[in-house]
């Protein structure tokens, strides 16, 4: 019993981080219909920003998080204006953006590899290797903190989307772009904003990832299918769905990892992605199979 609880705790803490990693991806798809294959590579970008700050000044990754997030958001604005704004009129828009983001992922990977080499890195603040003990259970502090911070950020994002004027505009654009434009929403600005928030979330996730996982530039290929499975299961575009799917899959993966073997735990995500695409392409929370 204690075993099961232990696995559950580890799965949930990690699931929180994965939820944050996926939320930006989901937001960007929801508003702009861009399947951003470069999202994980930008998370790694955020992780390197954090790593670099830690190495230079010893700055705590969680303190660095807002800065990394802002830096990545600014990069997001730049990328959107350079690469995606011009494609909005393209006939094969969604397909085109998938390939463009794929190319972007390679560019980011190559750039990071050139700057930081392909060595595995990890940021190691003291709490990253420490843990709380409750009876037989242990809770690694790093994962716990990262999970909590993730859920706080996602909570803030949800409140922003639910209640603020810009949040209304973002949700309206997600649900009916034309109608939003007709009601006076500057849709192009909303797209830039949503993209910036999405990439900013990648930066924030990067700061947390930097001390939870070890990373290197090519690591993002392992994450893309993992995050896609979370986002697709959650119903592309739904933040709540993304959180639920992340927690669920992460817990399942934790059990698979413990009971069957560590190599097979990532397979959980890929197989899940495969199954969802085939059985219920609209995901758990999506209503229309827009992706299919």
């Amino acid at each position, binding site marked *: 019993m204690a075993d099961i609880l232990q696995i559950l705790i580890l799965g949930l803490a990690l699931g929180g981080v994965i939820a944050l990693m996926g939320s930006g991806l989901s937001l960007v798809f929801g508003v702009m219909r861009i399947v951003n294959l470069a999202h994980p590579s930008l998370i790694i970008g955020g992780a390197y920003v954090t790593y670099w700050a830690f190495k230079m000044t010893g700055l705590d990754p969680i303190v660095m998080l807002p800065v990394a997030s802002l830096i990545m958001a600014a990069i997001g604005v730049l990328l959107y204006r350079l690469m995606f704004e011009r494609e909005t009129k393209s006939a094969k828009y969604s397909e085109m953006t998938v390939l463009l983001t794929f190319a972007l992922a390679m560019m980011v990977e190559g750039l990071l590899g050139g700057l930081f080499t392909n060595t595995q890195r990890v940021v190691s603040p003291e709490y990253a290797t420490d843990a709380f003990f409750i009876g037989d259970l242990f809770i690694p502090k790093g994962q716990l903190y990262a999970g909590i911070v993730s859920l706080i950020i996602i909570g803030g994002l949800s409140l922003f989307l639910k209640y603020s004027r810009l949040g209304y505009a973002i949700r309206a654009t997600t649900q009916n772009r034309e109608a939003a434009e*007709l009601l006076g929403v500057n849709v192009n600005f909303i797209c830039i904003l949503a993209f910036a928030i999405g990439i900013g979330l990648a930066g924030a996730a990067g700061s947390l990832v930097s001390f939870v996982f070890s990373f290197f530039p090519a690591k993002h290929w392992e994450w893309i299918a993992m995050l896609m499975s979370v986002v697709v299961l959650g119903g592309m575009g739904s933040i709540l769905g993304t959180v639920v799917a992340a927690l669920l899959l992460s817990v399942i993966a934790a059990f698979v990892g413990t009971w069957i073997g560590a190599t097979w735990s990532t397979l959980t995500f890929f197989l899940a992605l495969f199954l969802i695409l085939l059985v219920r392409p609209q995901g758990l929370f999506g209503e229309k199979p827009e992706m299919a």
Partner: protein
Amino acid sequence: MTELLQVSNITAGYGDGPAILDGAHLTVEPGKVHCIIGPNGAGKSTLMKAICGMLTIRKGDVLFNGKRLNGMRPDQILREGICFVPQERALFPKMTVRENLRMGGFILDDKKELERRIEGILERFPILRERADQHAGTMSGGQQQTLAMARTLIIKPTIVMLDEPSLGLAPKIVQEMFDIMKMMSAEGVTVLLVEQNALMGLKNSDWGVVLDLGRTLFEGPAATVLADPRIQELYLGGKKAA
């Protein structure tokens, strides 16, 4: 001069594509219900999109109270008081009725005033108050169309343009929609609608416009348009040409 909106000889199309509208004109008088009829592909919806700023007008002018509208963005035209409801209701299906109404007043800066106006709308449309916290996508077609029309009233518009408000609705419900339009026009809102069911549309309007092949063929009082034998034959499903 009594005209509120004057569209003269405009040419417009999508992107770099061919001109859908070529020589369309339109005169809109205040307080009346105007109905645009014409076959599929005549350019009816395109005309509305051109007026509300969603399409670039290549040639010609749109004058609203003497002010040129062409070249303005949709949100600027909305602020002038022209509201457009495209086909398929244009609601936000996963927002509640109240949130949809709030989006209707997106351009209003005064939050308190907005809430007051929403209350006013809910007062007038009891069915919407009943469903105020329900997702718009879960309502019936008629209720959705009611919401779409009611939503335009939030900004107290001068002109409301409706693209096929009767689409997919049962005949009895369609009449309710026309009643709402009459109520709007009685309050001084000018209504411009595109109607596939030309007969029904004209019967409920003051002014009729026949559009075909991107050009305005005929403009006149709805009764005159209804009575014209040529129009009956070609567009009202009257006697088929031999």
